[in-house]
């Protein structure tokens, strides 16, 4: 071992500090989880399992619960694990196996105990729900009430996500649900698959936004668990990640509890300036939120998109066939309209014309094949009037009615002007 010396780099210290921070955070959340169990009068389980991402927990928790009830057909179990490998990848698969083992160890050899224990899961759900109701009723703390209100049962909460973290959490839910469906949602039936589905339907799918989380959030706020008071100047993403208990996944059973850390990295872009500035998830070269095991969710300027959109690996045909117009637009924007028009071979309609009021820039009009949009459209390729940070000007496409026959007419249509009016434009910024 190296002797301790004064020459430790700040990077080492930072890493150690963040490790300590993560450990402290885990302790804090575990204490909060204990408080939830105490509140409803259920002994805290001996087995506390930290999973590496919500995806791992979403698979591991129902599988472990299933094993606890006594389903121990190894052949079936292995086929479920293979399904996880196939849909979520082997890294996730390995993590799921490890988490299941950690959670179900012991229960495997004691099916009677396991059955009785896991049967209490539904009861735990109900008790947590009423405990939260009491918290909300009794506390004057507006924030708790709002948090609880925001994320009470899904069918009641149709409000749009307001924080980047809530946006990321919702996207992660979606991604997790898709992966679980892909693995166990098919026509193939067996006991474990059936049980995983059943437990999902028993609301295991959205522990993130369910009532228990708010309960954890409540205890974290009130149980005197200071996370770190001495660091007011931490990165914005980190502070945002801590503001809300939403975004936190856990799977409470009587005989085990699974907890998932928040994302290891979060990428946000600032929109607006000063006091009005907000943040939204965005990253052009990777997941906007990523967990340690590689699970991540992808965003283009605040829109949740498939990974292939950000990796820019879709073929032109795949983009054109994408049924979700928002995702199609993000995919085209990610690629750039000018490149997309060239690659898709969109025929040019009429000649390029100078953009009035935007010296040096031109407008071109291109046909978009029918069947991509519900109506036949053309696309007008324009150039911003303002330079970007990198000195270039952003080129972007606007869809216009197919009866536009020249770029000027198309540009005029976008503002409801006549071509003659548009041609007299004095400035574009």
């Amino acid at each position: 071992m190296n002797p301790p010396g004064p020459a430790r780099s700040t990077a080492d210290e930072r890493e150690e500090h963040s490790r300590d921070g993560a450990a402290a955070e885990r302790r804090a959340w575990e204490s909060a989880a204990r408080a939830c169990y105490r509140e409803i009068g259920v002994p805290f389980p001996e087995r506390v399992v930290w999973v590496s991402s919500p995806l791992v927990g979403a698979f591991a928790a129902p599988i472990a619960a299933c094993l606890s009830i006594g389903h121990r057909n190894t052949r079936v179990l292995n086929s479920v694990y293979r399904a996880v490998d196939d849909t979520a990848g082997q890294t996730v698969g390995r993590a799921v196996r490890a988490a299941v083992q950690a959670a179900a160890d012991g229960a495997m050899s004691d099916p009677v105990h396991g059955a009785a224990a896991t049967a209490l899961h539904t009861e735990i759900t109900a008790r947590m729900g009423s405990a939260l109701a009491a918290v909300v009723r009794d506390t004057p703390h507006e924030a708790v009430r709002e948090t609880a209100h925001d994320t009470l049962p899904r069918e009641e909460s149709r409000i749009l996500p307001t924080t980047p973290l809530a946006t990321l959490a919702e996207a992660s839910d979606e991604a997790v649900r898709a992966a679980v469906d892909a693995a166990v949602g098919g026509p193939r039936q067996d006991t474990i698959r059936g049980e995983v589905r059943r437990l999902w339907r028993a609301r295991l799918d959205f522990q993130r936004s369910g009532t228990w989380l708010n309960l954890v959030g409540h205890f974290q706020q009130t149980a005197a668990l200071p996370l770190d008071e001495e660091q007011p100047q931490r990165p914005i993403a980190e502070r945002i990640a801590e503001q809300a208990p939403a975004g936190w996944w856990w799977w409470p059973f009587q005989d085990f509890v699974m907890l998932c850390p928040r994302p290891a990295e979060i990428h946000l872009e600032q929109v607006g300036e000063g006091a009005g500035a907000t943040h939204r998830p965005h990253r052009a070269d990777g997941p906007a939120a990523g967990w340690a095991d590689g699970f991540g969710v992808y965003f283009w300027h605040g829109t949740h998109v498939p990974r292939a959109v950000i990796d820019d690996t879709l073929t032109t045909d795949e983009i054109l066939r994408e049924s979700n117009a928002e995702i199609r637009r993000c995919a085209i924007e990610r690629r750039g309209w000018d490149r997309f028009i060239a690659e898709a071979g969109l025929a040019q309609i009429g000649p390029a014309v100078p953009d009035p009021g935007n010296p040096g820039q031109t407008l071109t009009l291109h046909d978009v094949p029918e069947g991509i949009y519900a109506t036949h459209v053309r696309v007008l390729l324009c150039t911003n009037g303002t330079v970007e940070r990198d000195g270039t000007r952003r080129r972007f496409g606007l869809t216009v009615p197919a009866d536009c026959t020249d770029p000027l007419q198309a540009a005029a249509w976008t503002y409801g002007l006549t071509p003659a009016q548009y041609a007299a434009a004095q400035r574009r910024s």
Partner: protein
Amino acid sequence: MPTLEQAIATFGVTVDEHLDRQAEIPVLSGLQFQGDVAVVPVNRDPARTPVPETGVPIVRGQAEANTHLLVATGKAFFTPERFGGGLVLGVLTVAEDATAYLAHPEHAFTGIAPGTYELRRQREQADQARLVAD
């Protein structure tokens, strides 16, 4: 014509750092555009509601960002279109001796000379016509 630096100091609205602080802001009475907003000279009854000192957000961007904020030195009036959701956002009247501006973090400032204008928003033909958010 004020410079970008002067406009930022006057209205307390800041814009992207890379934009030239010494650039002068043209103050025009003709048709001009700021991203997805058009300033269209019109013959219409003048607007009568004063633009407050804090400005009027004309188009709020996604998550409150990228707002086009209408501000003015001197007397300016803005009446939002009664039935919102269409292309016309409202009527702007800039009094003699006054200047109105649209401020935007990415597009900086657009100077508007005395006169009456419609402020319009840009649309796209998607599955049905929809408004553009830049």
